[in-house]
């Protein structure tokens, strides 16, 4: 009996106990920080909307919330923001990247063609290569331009339909371009229903 207990029962009990302890600890930590993590996530989304709308804000949770609540209206499937007396439309777009999905907010002027800005909500491209789509200079170059875009060598874009690709990340640049090219037609479909 004692041999049986030592060889069979005790390992089972031990594993069971240690599993319960680990689960209680991690689940507890998860529950304790759940609200905070949710708030962070919301803040990221809101910041992306503000960036896409071309609004400036103080980069803290409070700063983002203040500007967001003051100028952004949530509609069915998209957002609107009043900037300098004009309405801008911000639509969420999701598409494939090289490794995973890329989720962005695309801000468009009233004509639903000219970009007011682009901001990334989430992406999982290679850090240092495709991951550079998160760098401000890359997303900032879409403001004031209209698609469909042509990718040119990094640092050489000059015309309104040209954007710089990222050296060493042609595929990610291409995927990102495809995503932004969809913005105008998506916007017409979501907002005007055509």
């Amino acid at each position, binding site marked *: 009996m004692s041999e049986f207990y030592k060889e069979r029962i005790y390992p089972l009990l*031990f*594993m069971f106990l240690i599993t319960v302890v680990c689960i209680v600890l991690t689940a507890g930590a998860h529950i304790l920080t759940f609200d905070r993590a949710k708030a962070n996530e919301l803040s990221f989304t809101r910041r992306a909307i503000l960036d896409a709308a071309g609004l400036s804000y103080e980069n803290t949770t409070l700063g983002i919330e203040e500007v967001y609540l003051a100028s952004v209206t949530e509609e069915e499937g998209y957002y609107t923001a009043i900037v300098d007396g004009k309405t801008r439309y911000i639509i969420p777009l999701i598409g494939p990247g090289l490794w995973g999905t890329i989720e962005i907010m695309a801000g468009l002027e009233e004509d639903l063609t000219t970009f007011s800005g682009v901001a990334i909500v989430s992406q999982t491209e290679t850090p240092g*290569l495709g991951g550079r789509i998160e760098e401000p200079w890359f997303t900032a170059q879409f403001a004031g331009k209209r698609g469909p875009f042509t990718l040119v060598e990094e640092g050489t874009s000059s015309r309104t339909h040209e954007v710089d690709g990222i050296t060493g990340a042609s595929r990610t640049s291409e995927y990102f371009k495809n995503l932004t090219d969809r913005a105008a037609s998506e916007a017409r479909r979501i907002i005007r229903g055509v």
Partner: protein
Amino acid sequence: MAKSGLLKTFTEPLGKNNPVFVQILGICSTLAVTNKLQNTMVMVLGVTFATALSSWTVSLLRKRIPSRIRMMVETMIIAAYVILVDIILKAYYPEMWKQLGPYVGLIITNCIVMGRVEAFALTNKPLPSLVDGLASGLGYAYVLLIIAAVRELMGSGSLWGYRILGPWWTNWAIMVMPPGGFFILAIAIWVIRETVGKEVSHA
């Protein structure tokens, strides 16, 4: 254990028993996360934390863990600590968590954590095990930070995200990609073994 014993436990993983350039452990993450200093820093802090506390916990339980299921128990403990790191980052350092999301979970599979638990913590008291885990993490940390500094400087012309080299510098895309990790790691192991670690390779 005597004081000098603890000190030895602490210094060995930093030098002649270094996990990366002597034991060649944890190479997968060395290649994956060393293209940016910031990512590397979070990774090494996470690994140091996980190694130190897992070693300590396993050592506390070492007389009670049935040896036939010890690896399951170890993995469970390591995973719990790593998930805690992930949860804390997500709640309190969201920017960092966003950049590193997938890497943090990978700490669980870092061979150094399991390696130190198996090789040291199972047969030593809690305090030396904690010191050993901590030192192994630090020994891993500084090698990775050196590699990351070289790769980021050559691959992006920057350090810690700040542009260091002027516009005359052409980024070496290969340094940012995995092959760059192989090259710099190999060179680092060679240089360190030929200089400071000379006695090790002949030991």
